[in-house]
């Protein structure tokens, strides 16, 4: 029998059972949610860890990128700066080319450069960027006071910087204080010759980090400055040497001009003397020749054979003497410019033919074969007929004298604006040593053959003067035993 209490207890139990089920279900859900929350929290923590990895990787990448960017910018700036510095050849301008903008692009805000003056034995401030005048002067005083240390630093030829841990003469902390910067690079300026110095660059920006790359870069810049200073010095030296040379050339030219004037005066005096003497000689000669001619003509009575023979010799030598005096006079006149050339278009073939006719007997006597060749349509030359005829006579006569037998030829070759005339013989020729003096007055080649051949030594000198008066040139080629060729040029008429 169920009593009421038992029933109520049963109902209560049933109620509890009914209530427990949803509670159990909710608890499961809570547990599930808790698990999800824990999972989410774990995922979030994991994600956060991943975020940390991303940030750290990003920092490394940024650092590498930044360093690369900086290096590219610095190298580009260094290239520009080097080009600018190298473009100047004035020592005083080298440092003026380094401007604040370049320095900023290299990552620095301040710069100082000093050169050590060996004579004065002190440092000279050559560059100051980012410093007030007073501040720079104060630093210079410090450098001068510690001259020995900084000279030793230059001798070491090594840069120091605020990243350096090695011992250096410019103690890092002190350098920062003295130069009023937070980071710096300090490097010697070295030139092969001349003044050495110091280059200091610094940054007052706390964000600036000096790297070994900066040290290298500033060292390159210092070397460039050293090179530019040396180039400027060399240029200055070369320029100075050039100036000295020019001065000496000028002085020498002045001396030579003076000497030339003197020579001209002497030459003029010589010409005047020759002219006067020749005139003085010709007057009595004319008388001698005149009287000899009268006597020879027999107008004053018949002469004994011996006397006639001797008078003939007097007459002949008088003729030669007259010719010699005339040559001397002509030479003197031509050289002193007293002869007016009668220039006109001239056919050289006619002249050569005339001379060949004139000397035909002599060719025949010495069994010399004479020939001449002319180019087709040979142009005329601008020349004085009688003077040029004289040139041909002298040259061909000369060839006849020194050609015991053989050939003499005259060849005319047309050049661009002139005609070249070659008078060639197959005679005895002459040594090379004689050729330089050949056209000098009274010069005769020293040879056995010459001792037998008469000559005054004026013929070729006269020829040279005549050719020069025509604005032509004359030269000779010769070989002992093979013959001689005299060549000269005359300007074309048209």
């Amino acid at each position: 029998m169920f009593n009421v209490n038992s029933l109520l207890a049963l109902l209560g139990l049933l109620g509890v059972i009914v209530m427990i089920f949803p509670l159990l279900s909710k608890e499961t859900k809570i547990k599930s949610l808790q698990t999800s929350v824990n999972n989410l929290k774990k995922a979030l923590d994991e994600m956060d860890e991943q975020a940390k990895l991303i940030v750290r990787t990003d920092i490394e990448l940024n650092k590498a990128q930044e360093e690369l960017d900086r290096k590219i910018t610095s190298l580009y700036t260094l290239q520009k700066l080097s080009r600018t510095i190298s473009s100047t050849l004035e020592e005083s301008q080298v440092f003026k080319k380094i401007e604040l903008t370049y320095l900023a692009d290299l990552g620095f805000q301040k710069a100082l450069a000093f050169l050590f003056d060996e004579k004065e034995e002190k440092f000279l401030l050559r560059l100051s960027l980012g410093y007030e005048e007073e501040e720079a002067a104060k630093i210079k005083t410090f450098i001068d006071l510690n001259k020995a240390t900084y000279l030793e630093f230059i001798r070491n030829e090594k840069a120091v910087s605020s990243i350096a841990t090695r011992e250096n003469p410019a103690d890092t902390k002190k350098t920062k204080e003295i130069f009023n910067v937070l980071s710096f690079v300090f490097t010697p300026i070295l030139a092969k010759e001349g003044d050495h110095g110091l280059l200091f660059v610094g940054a007052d920006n706390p964000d600036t980090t000096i790297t070994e790359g900066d040290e290298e870069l500033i060292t390159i810049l210092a070397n460039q400055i050293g090179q530019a200073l040396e180039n400027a010095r060399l240029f200055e030296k070369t320029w100075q040497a050039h100036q000295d040379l020019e001065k000496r050339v000028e002085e020498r030219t002045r001396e030579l001009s003076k000497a030339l004037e003197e020579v001209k005066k002497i030459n003029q005096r010589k010409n005047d003397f020759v002219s006067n003497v020749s005139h003085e000689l010709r007057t009595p000669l004319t008388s001698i020749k005149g009287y000899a001619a009268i006597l020879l003509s027999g107008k004053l009575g018949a002469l004994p054979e011996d006397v006639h023979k001797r008078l003939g010799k007097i007459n002949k030598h008088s003729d030669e003497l007259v010719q010699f005096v005339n040559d001397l006079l002509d030479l003197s006149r031509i050289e002193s410019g007293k002869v007016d050339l009668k220039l006109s278009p001239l056919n050289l073939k006619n002249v050569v033919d005339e001379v060949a006719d004139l000397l035909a007997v002599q060719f025949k006597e010495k069994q010399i074969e004479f020939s001449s060749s002319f180019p087709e349509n040979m142009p005329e030359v601008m020349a004085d007929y009688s003077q040029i005829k004289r040139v041909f006579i002298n040259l061909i006569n000369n060839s006849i004298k020194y050609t015991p037998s053989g050939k003499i030829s005259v060849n005319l070759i047309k050049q661009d604006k002139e005609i070249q005339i070659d008078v060639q013989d197959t005679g005895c020729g002459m040594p090379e040593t004689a050729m330089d003096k050949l056209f000098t007055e009274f010069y005769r080649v020293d040879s056995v053959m010459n001792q037998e051949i008469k000559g005054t030594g004026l013929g070729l000198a006269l020829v040279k003067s005549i050719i020069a008066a025509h604005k032509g040139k004359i030269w000779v080629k010769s070989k002992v035993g093979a013959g001689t060729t005299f060549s000269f040029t005359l300007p074309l008429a048209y």
Partner: protein
Amino acid sequence: MLDIGIGFSSEENAVLAAEEAIWKAKDNLNNSSKIDLALVFNSSEFSAAGIARTFSALLSDVPLIGGSGPAVISEKGIYKHGIVLALLGFPEGAYCNTAATRDINEKNPFTCGKELAEKLLFGFKNIPRNLGLLFFDRLIDGGPNFIAGLQENLGKSFPCIGASLSGQNDLTRSFLYLNNEVFNNSCAGVIWGGKITFGMGIKHGWKPLGKPHLVSSTVGNIINSIDDKPAVELYEEYLAYDPVKLKKSLKKLSVSYPIGVFIPGEEEYLLRNVTSVEDRGALVCQGSIPEGSTIRLMISTKETCLAAIPQAIKEAQKTLDGSLLRQSNARNSKFAIVFSSISRYNLLRRDIKEELNFIKKSLGEIPFLGVYTHGELAPLIESSYRGQIYFHNQDFSVLIIEG
């Protein structure tokens, strides 16, 4: 129609540079005899006194506002040595007023903000005012309080945009110009009103990384603790740097990995650079972070950083197109003022030219000038421009002006 003449010079000498910029800007104006406002930015190594003197001599009574920054932005390029100037002739019914407040770090920031607002509002009775443009020459210690003071008088929903124009390294070489005067430790501003409309956009391109953290204790711009641990531990954990190394390099590293502050209801995180680490492990930030903020570490690539430019410009154009003040029938002309954080300049390094290419491409025919800054002042996104103004780090912001 708004008459705009922009001139640029990179002459070495401040006086010559200012003269050349003025001459070029005048040359680009339709009517150089009616100039209502001159806006100038120059790189900080110029002599501010020389520039101000030249402007005073050549522009006489034309209101002038501007300042020096680490680099200037012109259509010709981005220059660490240069001066860029815009001369503006307003259309009929458009007005502006310039003012400045000095010694802001020595005075109560809230009072300073209020004082500037009062000066700016002078003469604007019954004229609808549209936008405020503000320049600081350095970071303000009580930045949020200054803005609160400013908004107290200008109105909570009044849109403002601006920048901190400090020099790159030397804060003593940071100057502001207002009319014929050169200021330091100040804020200068201009309010525009009447028939002139604006569109502004601001983006940074940084993305959150890792799990969120809670700023458990702050005082102004100093974060004492994050997740109840010394704040510096956040960076120690993520960057795996020892404390000494981190203290030395965090200022630079935080340009790449700034703190992103989550602002409820805003799309973008507000970025904060860390300027230093205090001995007790507190982080000193470039701008305040409210206590209880949720923060994330932020990361960017050059691509996302550059992508922020077209996004900001698109947003500015969208704001301009949707402006209720805009008179669609009128024949209007536009110009833009751009502010980019110097952190972006340092991050992009040799690719900085890309930033200019993105600006030019996105602005199209719109002429512009700008300056690199140490912080930007703007709402987070255009939709909330009638609300809170924030001090930003690492952002690119743009203001397009039409009239």
